[in-house]
């Protein structure tokens, strides 16, 4: 889309609200749905990748040091990674205002 969604007027909508640009869902910030955020103690991390496998959003990747970490632009804060982590690396903390 040429403009951010919040600036589009009804005249900017394509016929039948068709999305003509493939893959533009990646521009959609699902991270603002989050009420809790994952925090990491990488000293405990064994880089097993279980969090990466379980993340329903597919937003976990390896950082420069090879540790697995969520992309907060997409992370919805479900906490599944924290629940599944076998070594207790991940703690969910409330998002502040």
């Amino acid at each position, binding site marked *: 889309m040429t403009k951010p969604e*919040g600036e*589009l007027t*009804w005249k900017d909508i394509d016929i039948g*609200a*068709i999305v*003509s640009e*493939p893959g533009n869902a990646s521009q959609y910030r699902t991270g603002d749905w989050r009420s809790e955020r994952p925090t990491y103690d990488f000293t405990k991390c064994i880089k097993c990748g279980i969090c990466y496998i379980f993340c329903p959003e597919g937003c976990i990747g390896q950082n420069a040091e090879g540790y697995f970490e969520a992309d907060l632009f997409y992370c919805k804060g479900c906490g599944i990674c924290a629940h599944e982590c076998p070594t207790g690396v991940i703690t969910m903390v409330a998002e502040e205002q």
Partner: protein
Amino acid sequence: MVKRVGIEVSLAIGDAVKLANADVIAAYPITPQTHIVEHLAELVANGELDAQYIPVESEHSAMSACLGSSAVGARTFTATAGQGLELMHEVLYVASSMRLPMVMAVANRALSAPLSVWGDQSDVMAVRDTGWIQIFVENGQDAVDNTLCAFRIGEDPRVLLPVMVHLDGFYLSHMIEPVVFPEQSQVDKFLPPYKYPMPLHPDKPVTMGAFAPPIIYSEAKKAQVINLEASKGVILECWQEFGNIFGRHYSPVERYRSEDAKVLLLTLGGFSETAMTTIDKMRGEGKSVGLVRIRLWRPFPFAELRQAVKNAELLIVLDRAISFGGPGGPVCSEVRSALYNEAKKPKIIGFVGGLGGRDITPAGFETIINRGIEVSQKGSDREFEIFGVRE
């Protein structure tokens, strides 16, 4: 040389769809619409119409298949009635919101319960707000003409909307009527090939029917409102051109001996022709009565309606559907609303009648008009009356 033929109106609609050279027909048979799709299935099976006929398992699937075929740019037709139209309900909104042109003949039928396969307009009124263009026809010729017009209107690049063509179940669908079919060459010229601007195609992928968060949904709906309202200009243009070519003229609100009438009756669909007989009789007796018929139900013809009734003292509206617990009939309710802010307007009295196949004869329309006059003078403790009901 065109020839006038006697043909059942359902079959005539099927032949009109053949003349329009439809590409896909997806339908589920339901009374009183069955003969339309049965005839089309036969035309396809016999190789007389080069189209895909999709025999689906329900009307919900019929309408869903039509979405797909319209989206790839195929000329699409379906037909239904009554319960079938209601089973399509949620998909009807999708067709109009996604701006997918298709034509659907609806052989208007009552809704259960109690089970009734006979005609009234309950099915139409339940899908009133689904965003489709909706046209009522009154006779067999009208049904053929407006089936052709419906393709042309809906597929116009300025419109791109689905169109319902409403005909009275049984009263019209099963009548044998004289019909003049246009020549194939005339239809080919009148109806250019359908070309969807952004079709589903692997070479240029698009997403149709994606979700819209609160930040964009209102804008999508406003675009839809403007688009449906603007279709009226194209509808008028289409009827004008159809009239120029074929000599038969249609307009959003049609009048019959109404110009100087003090009392007007308002109807929709095939019962209007019976009402004309009544108007002729009462005019012959020196009574100042006339008839107004709404042909274009959506987009609603506000200006034409106001113009048609402004000089009358009394407007009697006949509905063939009920808004239970509401203001009576949906047509009366809309007409009243359209006139409310007008400085000069008639008094409005609503009747519901012709439900579930109950006939209204010319004498019946006379009773309705006389009772309407009586109620307007003496008042009534009811919002509306059901005509002919045994008390």
